[in-house]
């Protein structure tokens, strides 16, 4: 045990020198240099509040799911950060640093012209449709989990999906519908009064995927379930 602990110590010592950029709910995110390149390191740390068995299983599953889904997306031509290295003992993923990017959340909050946001949400709809066509369910779609890389030409919007920790593979329209439902709620609660913008996103999603009608139907069902749910007590 003592030996394996000392061996594990490589990554923690390295992270001590790294720049902590975010303390998320389940991971710390650092920026550092790895093999001479700028990287982002996502460290899933032990959550002391939960039962050790729950914690270990979740942490391992999420690390695995994250890298799997990233690869699956990239194979399909959907932008997601390149994985450079995974340490399953300390649950760290070393990822390409998407330099000069801003989150879609910050971008929307900085109040661009509506025209520009329209093109952006259409692009989001298109990318998500593509992702769902690959049967990747992101599981945590928010505007914070989409990065925008400013490009030279305005027509081309460079969108990168990140944070695949809650992702999984499923072909079920129900799972895809819930994925969109999660985004809808995060979108509308983070960006008040953007209902029409989100509708546009869904329209673009529908237009971009052949399988979208079943998904949108499920989305409507899930929404209705939310509204119809008895709320006793």
């Amino acid at each position, binding site marked *: 045990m003592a030996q*394996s602990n000392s*061996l*594990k110590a*490589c*990554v923690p010592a*390295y992270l001590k020198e790294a720049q902590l950029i975010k303390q998320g709910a389940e991971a710390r995110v650092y920026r*550092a*240099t*790895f*093999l*001479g*390149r700028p990287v982002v390191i996502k460290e899933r740390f032990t959550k002391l509040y939960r039962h050790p068995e729950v914690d270990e299983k979740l942490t391992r599953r999420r690390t*695995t799911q994250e*890298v*799997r889904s*990233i*690869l699956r997306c*990239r*194979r*399909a*031509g*959907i*932008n*997601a950060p*390149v*994985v*450079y*290295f*995974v*340490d*399953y*003992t300390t649950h760290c993923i*070393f990822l*390409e640093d998407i330099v000069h990017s801003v989150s879609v959340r910050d971008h929307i909050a900085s109040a661009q012209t509506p025209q520009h946001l329209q093109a952006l949400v259409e692009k989001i709809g298109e990318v998500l449709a593509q992702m769902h066509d690959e049967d990747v369910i992101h599981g945590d779609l928010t505007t914070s989990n989409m990065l925008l890389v400013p490009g030279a030409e305005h027509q081309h919007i460079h969108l990168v999906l990140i944070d695949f920790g809650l992702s999984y593979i499923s072909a079920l329209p129900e799972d895809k519908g819930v994925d969109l439902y999660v985004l809808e709620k995060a979108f509308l609660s983070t960006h008040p009064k953007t209902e029409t913008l989100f509708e546009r996103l869904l329209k673009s999603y529908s237009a971009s995927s052949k399988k979208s009608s079943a998904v949108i139907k499920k989305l409507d069902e899930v929404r209705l379930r939310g509204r119809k749910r008895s709320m006793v007590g």
Partner: protein
Amino acid sequence: MQLTQDLELFPEYTVTQLLFKDVKNATELRKMAVNGEIKGALINPSMVVDAFQILVATNKAVHLHKIGKMKTRSLYSEIIFNLSPTNNISEAFKRFGVSDSDCAVHIVLVHNKEENLNVDDIISKVDGQQIPVDQVSDLMDAAKIKKLYKVAPQEEKCGSLLDAVVCRMATKDVA
């Protein structure tokens, strides 16, 4: 000529890469690697997109070596194994190791920082012409790489061939 890079995760280690073309003694070099006269990994440069690809494989090999989870016998064979997109060891050596007929060799050395590495000794053993490591991409066989790593054209829309290759290497344990 050669390329030296520290492993940030393992500060005691440094990786040195050397590249040779017009090599005439590949068979002999392989024997030297096997019997330990050359302490390094001999890689077929036609399968290497960039020196970074080698660094990714090496970093992972050192990591697995340290935690005692290597799939192969030695650090150097582990580097070769890590380059492969599959978990088939003999296949990995066939594709990424040097074969007798090869006339180019990419050599990877992992050494302690303090250790005085005798690069000249290695160079003297190779009957060939040393060229800068960053010219490795000129020697690669892109078609063969794409086929082996199963890189479809749409993937190259969101990144380079190097990105595609590295991503597969890093995730092959769970993919």
